[in-house]
Structure formats: structure tokens, C-alpha cells
């Protein structure tokens, strides 16, 4: 994966202003959903974004695609700064960057047939295509994601969750985008179906060569699909590393706790493993702790952690961690 990166994100922040109230003398608060996140993405690479509620991973995914207002920082796509584009130019760029959603059924317009749903991106970006060509392409795509082409006139509610997700993926892939952001694509599916969809995404990546940003709270699934993984906590990057490095040698106490908390489906291993149970609860994102946001739950926290926010320190190649005490 050499060559210029497909996507280059620098100091990306997404802030939401919560309205204050003059009546109750409450100043407006600032919710930093994403706080100065930077990363690169190479063509054909999958970056896994993991973290728990409130970590900002979904917000980050949408911010990269510019689906949200109030984005600060730079998002450079193939050398072009997306912030400098006007609305129409950005709209045209969307052909190359797509998104797959968490709730498979809700992401599909209930009043449109499957064929119409999958054909919509074709209508939007290739209006010159004839109806017959468009239909052939839609049916080919349906077969490509494991759906029966004969079902082209059916409606979303006639399909199961897994099939609906395939429809969403077909819609995202039909214009062969360079980047697909997958926002928890398998979390709402049954376990036996999750594996099917994960395999499908990986097959499509092999076939089309697109990059993926795979957002999930399920570390086992992410380990399977991602080349590199970024761990987020309260909107900040805690650790970023190649997949094998992260799982074999996690350096951030949060990553360590996260990995230890993932249940292993093996009674002996699961009961024997060392547990790092975090104390306390997630702090409110409106009032993050001073210095390092993780210090209120961290077993290694010291006074330094309350004073200074840790920078992302490079360790070995590609492995960076934001912790003052990573080497203890």
C-alpha cells in the first residue's frame, strides 16, 4: 500500500453547541464529539474504528463524508481539501465515497422497490444510462451481493435483516466508490448472519479494491476485517496500530481493558483469562476530565495525567499511543 494516501485527515474536530438558557443562567456547553483526530487511509486499506458509546466513532465516520455541519480540521481527499468545495462540488464527489448504515431496514425507503433503491445512485450520477442498461447493472449487482435478481420488484419489508443489509451494500457499491464507510454494519444482525455480511464486504473489497472505514464496537469482528485499527475514547484517539500489533501488544490501558473485556466463546479460556475491569462509568462528554480523558477510570493514572493531555507518541512503525505511562 504505497503511494499517496486516498484520504488524509488532520486535526478533525466536530463540535456541537448545546444551547444555554438565560432563564436558568446556564451557559451553553460545547460537546466535542470528535476532538482533533488525525489519520491517513491508503487505497484498498480497511481502517477499523473501535470504541464504546460516546467515543465519537460514528460522528467521525460521518464527518469524513461531510454529512455533518460544524466540522473543523482538514479532510484531504486525493489531494483536494473537501472543506474548500461548495455544496454542488461536494455532492458530485459523493459518487466516490459511500456509507453503509447500522439499521439495515431503516436505511431503505419503504416505498421504493429494491430495484429502485439500488438504481438511485445510477440515476443520480449516470443519467445518460438507459433503463435497460440500468436494470441489467442493478441485477448484476444484486447477484454480486448474494441476492436473487428476480426479487428486483420486492419491497424492503419483505426481506430479512441480512438481506436488507445486502441491499444497502449493493446501493453503496453500484458506482464503484473508492471509499465505503461502514457504520456498525453487522451490529443489528443475528450472529449467524454477521459472518455472511463480513465475508461479503471482504470479498467486495478484494473485487473492487475500495478502502473501508469499518466502525464497530465489536473487537472480534473488527480484527477480522481491518488492516489497521484506531481506538477512540471520548472523541480522542487513544491508540492506532496495525491489526496484529494492536491485539498482541496493546499499549494504552483503555485498549487493554477493552480487549480483556471481549468474551471468548471458550469456557476454559474465558474463565482463566486475566480481567482488567475498569472502575467507574464513562464521564459526560460535555465535561471531559482535564488532561487525559481516560484518567478517571485508568489503573495507571497519576497527577501528570490530570495536568497534561497526552500526545500521540509513535512507538514502532505505524503504532501510536496517547498515554503518559504506556511503557509501564
Amino acid at each position, binding site marked *: 500500500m504505497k503511494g499517496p494516501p486516498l484520504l488524509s485527515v488532520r486535526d478533525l474536530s466536530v463540535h456541537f453547541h448545546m444551547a444555554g438558557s438565560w432563564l436558568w443562567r446556564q451557559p451553553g456547553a460545547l460537546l466535542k464529539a470528535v476532538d482533533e483526530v488525525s489519520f491517513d487511509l491508503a487505497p484498498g486499506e480497511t481502517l477499523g474504528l473501535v470504541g464504546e458509546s460516546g467515543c465519537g466513532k460514528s460522528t467521525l465516520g460521518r464527518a469524513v*463524508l461531510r*454529512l455533518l455541519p460544524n466540522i473543523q480540521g482538514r479532510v484531504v481527499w486525493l489531494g483536494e481539501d473537501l472543506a474548500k468545495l461548495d455544496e454542488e462540488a461536494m*455532492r*458530485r464527489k*459523493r*459518487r466516490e465515497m*459511500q*456509507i453503509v*448504515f447500522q*439499521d439495515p431496514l*431503516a*436505511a*431503505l*425507503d*419503504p*416505498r*421504493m*422497490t*429494491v430495484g429502485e433503491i439500488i438504481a*438511485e*445512485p445510477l440515476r*443520480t*450520477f449516470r443519467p445518460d444510462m438507459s433503463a435497460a442498461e440500468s*436494470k*441489467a447493472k442493478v*441485477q*448484476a449487482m444484486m*447477484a*454480486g451481493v*448474494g*441476492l*436473487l*435478481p*428476480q*426479487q*428486483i*420488484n*420486492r*419491497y424492503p*419489508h*419483505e426481506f430479512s435483516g441480512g438481506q436488507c443489509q445486502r441491499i*444497502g451494500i449493493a*446501493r453503496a457499491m453500484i458506482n464503484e466508490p473508492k471509499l465505503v464507510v461502514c457504520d456498525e454494519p453487522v451490529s443489528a444482525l443475528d450472529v449467524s448472519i454477521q459472518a*455472511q455480511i463480513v*465475508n*461479503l464486504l471482504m470479498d467486495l473489497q478484494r*473485487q473492487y479494491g475500495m478502502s473501508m472505514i469499518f466502525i464497530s464496537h465489536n473487537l472480534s469482528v473488527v480484527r477480522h476485517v481491518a488492516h489497521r485499527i484506531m481506538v477512540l475514547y471520548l472523541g480522542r484517539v487513544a491508540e492506532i496500530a496495525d491489526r496484529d500489533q494492536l491485539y498482541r501488544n496493546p499499549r494504552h490501558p483503555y485498549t487493554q481493558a477493552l480487549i480483556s473485556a471481549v468474551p471468548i466463546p471458550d469456557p476454559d479460556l474465558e474463565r482463566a483469562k486475566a480481567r482488567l475491569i475498569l472502575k467507574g462509568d464513562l464521564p459526560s462528554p460535555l465535561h471531559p476530565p482535564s488532561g487525559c480523558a481516560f484518567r478517571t477510570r485508568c489503573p495507571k493514572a497519576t497527577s501528570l495525567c490530570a495536568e497534561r493531555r497526552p500526545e500521540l507518541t509513535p512507538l514502532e512503525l505505524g503504532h501510536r499511543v496517547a498515554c503518559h505511562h504506556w511503557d509501564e
Partner: protein
Amino acid sequence: MADAAQTIAVPPSEEFKGRSLWSDAWRRLLRNRAAVVSAVLLASITLACVLVPLLSPIAYDDVFWDSVSAPPDFASGHYFGTDDSGRDLFVRTMYGGRVSLTVGLVATLVSLVIGVTWGAVAGFLGGRIDGAMMRFVDILYSVPFIFFVIMLTVVFGRHIVLIYIAIGAVSWLDMARIVRGQTMSLKRREFVEAARAGGVRQSRVILRHIIPNCLGPVIVYVTLTVPNVILLESFLSFLGLGVQEPSTSWGVLISDGARIMETSPWALCFPAAFLAVTLACFNFIGDGLRDALDPKDR
């Protein structure tokens, strides 16, 4: 799973037919007896009003000097009797029905088109544009209706089209509010976000995604607006602001009938009964539609 190798275009004859949400709703509606009976009744009344020349050779302004204020009599051909000017009430009731139903449908159609567009655009764009558009609606709401109609009548004289305009101008306001509310909640749904993420233009998002999904409550509201409009028209006619003689509507007939109620009760009863039954039918159908288009569908 299935291979990408099977990429043959399937001939349309082999494609499965989808079962849309509309057809599900239709089936549910058909199970509602009150709604079905009302629909049949309404269709019959409408048919009778349209086909009245086939049912009776008498014209609506024919005067029968020798049968003034005659009670209903099947043999004489005056099925509903005559009024105090000697005109056949059956034919007049049917012609009145034409006017009332037309006003109901046309004015509702006008309010539908304007209201849906206004509400969808305001709800979708949000922010200041939405604020401005809805303030306009609020201002129009506060205009006293009767005053408005009287002013129109004074300026333009009594004309049936005036009624359409006046009623249409007032009834689109509620529709706009409903559609705006629907749009605002739809805007947040994931398939709308998916369309925007897919690069679909805003105008097409509104037209293709928002409006069809609003139609449920809109349809229900339309079926409940029609009776309101008919009633409004009847009210105006009752006050003397509606249609011109010798043209008639149910409101006019009721007004005239009320005058001679004591001596010729049939002159009041028949048009009043028709109006009441029609309104009830629309209401039952509206209720049936509301149940059939239950939100849990979406």
C-alpha cells in the same frame, strides 16, 4: 453465498411481484366494514348526482305551477316533492350534490397541492426559511374567514369560483402544518440520510423520498378535509354568500328548506339527509384509512 457469475438479466416474466406497503394497507382497509359500506354509499350518491338526467327527465330549474310545495309522490315523478317555487326537489338535490361534491373535491385538491409543497419545503429546509414560511401560514390563519369571503364577494361579486378560491385559500394551511411536521421527522430517518449521502439532489430527496412517505397522514387528512369543505360551502350558502340562483347546492337547499320547514318538511329533510350521510361516509372512510395506514407500517 451466491456467485457473481450469474449475471444474466432476468426476463420480466420471471420477476417476483413485490408486495408494497400500499397494497398491505389496501387489504386492511377492505377488512373495515364501515369504510367499505361508506365507500359504496358515497359512490352511489356521486353516481346518482352525475347521472341524474338518466333518472329523471325534469331539469333543475323547471317550474311546475300546479305542484307547488307538493309532498313526495312516486307516481307523479316528484320523488322528493317540490319546493315552494314549484321546482322538483329530487333533481335539485342531485344537482346540489354535484356542486357540493365538486367544491369539496376541487378545493381539497387545491389545498393538497399548495399545502404539501409548502409544508415539505419548509420542513425540509428548516432554519430561517422554515420560520418565514410558517409565520406566513400563521398570519393567514388569523384572518377571519367570513370577513375574507365577504370582502371577496363585495369586490368580485357572487361567483362559484370565488368559493373555490376562498375555501382553498384557507384549507391548505392545516395541510401545510401537517406535512411540515411529517417532513421534519422524516428528515431524520436513515433512508433520507442515505439519499443525501448518496449525492441525491435536495429537490429529488423531497420529491421522491419525503413526500411519498408523508402521504399516509395526508390521505387521511384529505378524506377528513372534504367534509369540512362541503360543510363550509353549505355554511356560506346558508348565509347567502354561496352559489347564485337558480344554481343550487345542499347548503342553499337546506337554507331554503329551513324556511318552509313547518309546512314542507321534505324540503329540508332530503338535502339535509344527503349532506349528513355524505359527511358521515367521508368520516368513516377517513377513519378506516387512518387504521389501515397505521404508523407501525413504516
